[in-house]
């Protein structure tokens, strides 16, 4: 019993969010260790299409929870739906990607089950026969291996550290899940969502990310450098906390311990010092480039290629040189 693994899938506009697929990979690894099956859960008020889509990812069962109470994300409703699905699936491990949503409701699931939860895991190892979850702590300054001592285990999975599950031929079956949630009884009520619309790729799954810090001098300077370079490369844009706090760019662009965690093939940091809390969100990038006029900026300690220069001079030249090689 309880050998199965339940993975909760996040939807956007009725479709599976790519950032959920790394959690599916973790779920498959865990199910293999436990000798069980992977079950997936999709929640919303119209999830039939997403449930069909999930069949491509090689899970045994897709639970489709359709309910007006699940139309918009609410922590108490999503926790209840997850508990129902965990029971139906006979799940011993319950996981989701560590997104703003996953981080928000999974602890409620753990609390309700009396289970322990490992947050933001970046790997699974065997330590003395125990399933040890590896996770960053103290802004990634240290790595910690933890054991969840309860029989049931809840896990949030850092999407940058597991490959996304690949799509294949549809398999498994879709089952509908009656969650029986009374929307009126929920203690949190949805009011509105102000989406930051952008034509650029999503920060968390872009191949290239260009980030700017205080060295960009202001919202105009940021636009003229970071955004112009990003558009030349088809890249996503990111920022340090300092300039998000200053109101130069939307909060959704913050990279770091308390912002987004990104791991692109190429990360270019312009005029940012490389504070440990910023590095916590981008140290997993394959290639890091730093442009900073201070040769002692900490970012140079982790950059693969560093250029000590004025970013306002560098960016136009960079765009011209890149055009030559592209």
């Amino acid at each position, binding site marked *: 019993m309880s050998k199965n693994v339940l993975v909760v899938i996040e939807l*956007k506009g009725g479709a599976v969010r790519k950032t959920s697929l790394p959690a599916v990979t973790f779920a498959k690894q865990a199910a293999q260790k436990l000798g069980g099956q992977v079950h997936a859960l999709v929640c919303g008020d119209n999830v039939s299409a997403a449930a069909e889509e999930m069949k491509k990812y090689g899970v045994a069962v897709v639970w489709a929870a359709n309910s007006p109470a699940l139309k918009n994300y*609410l*922590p*108490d409703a999503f*926790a209840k739906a997850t508990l129902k699905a965990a029971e139906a699936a006979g799940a011993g491990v319950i996981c989701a990607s560590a*997104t*703003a*949503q996953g981080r*928000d409701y999974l*602890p*409620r*699931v*753990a*609390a*309700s089950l009396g289970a*322990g*939860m490992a*947050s933001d895991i970046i790997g699974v190892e065997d330590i003395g026969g125990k399933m*040890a979850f590896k996770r960053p*702590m*103290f802004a990634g300054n*240290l*790595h*910690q291996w*933890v*054991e*969840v*001592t309860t029989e049931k285990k809840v896990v949030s999975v850092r999407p940058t550290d597991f490959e996304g599950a690949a799509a294949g031929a549809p398999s498994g079956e879709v089952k509908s899940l009656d969650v029986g949630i009374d929307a009126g009884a929920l*203690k*949190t*009520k*949805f*009011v*509105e*969502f*102000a989406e*930051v619309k952008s034509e650029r790729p999503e920060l968390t799954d872009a191949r290239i990310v260009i980030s700017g810090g205080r060295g960009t001098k202001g919202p105009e300077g940021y636009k003229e450098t970071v955004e112009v370079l990003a558009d030349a490369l088809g890249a996503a844009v990111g920022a340090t*906390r300092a300039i998000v*706090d200053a109101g130069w760019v939307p*909060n*959704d662009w913050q990279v770091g*311990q*308390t912002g987004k965690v990104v791991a692109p*093939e*190429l990360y270019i940091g312009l005029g940012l010092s490389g504070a*440990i*809390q910023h590095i916590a969100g981008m*140290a997993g990038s394959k*290639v890091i480039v730093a442009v900073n006029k201070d040769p002692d900026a900490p970012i*140079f300690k*982790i*950059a*693969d*290629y*560093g250029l000590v220069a004025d970013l306002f001079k*560098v960016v136009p030249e*960079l765009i011209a*040189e*890149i055009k030559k*090689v592209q």
Partner: protein
Amino acid sequence: MKILCTAKRVPDPEIKLRVAGDGSGYVKDGVKWVVNPFDEIAVEESLRLKEKHGGEVVVVSIGPADAAQQVRQCLAMGADRGVLVKADGEVDSDAAARAIVKIIQEEKPDLVIMGKQAVDYDSSQAAAIAAELLGWGQAAYASKVVVADDGKSVRVTREVDGGLETVDVVLPGIVTADLRLNEPRYASLPSIMKAKKKPLKETTFAELGVDAAPKVKSLKIAEPPARKAGQLVPDVPTLVKKLHDEAKVI
């Protein structure tokens, strides 16, 4: 309005922690301790709501006896009373949450404001665990909190993936503070003196009748592998050439 907020003692985020010899934890001797930055924001928000709506602010911490210093710091900011649950050794987010729930049940606040995450273990669990155990609503990652005119709910703007979400949380409920909720005040010297006389109740897990056993056990702690040292390039053409020929990313 009675507000309860929580404040964990954590190592100063600006310092570098060292792994203890046996890998069981981090070296605590000589570490500079501070109030978890998100909790300072939670305390500040509680004070601002009290200034606007009247009431009382109670601050709760779970930690070693020395954590009384951090509770005093919150009292110096302006909180009215403190409760310290003394515990030696690591307390996981779940045990902390269960102690906090017990105190919430005794204190019966209208609103609880906690931090989004404690920056030592970065778990970000305690508030949601407490909300679930109490059967309350929650709004995490708040960048704005407004009490409804009828005082029966709070409207919270939340920083989430892709934008800003607004929700109403029925009171009593739990909110967690994100970085942009406010800028915490500095305590003035007179208020630091005054804080020394404010009530600070000390208790223990045993007295509260809460089991402190962790559900998440630390097996090992280690430094992450260092990134291999990179190189400085003299100019833009060299940089682009290396990115193209060597790293093959553009």
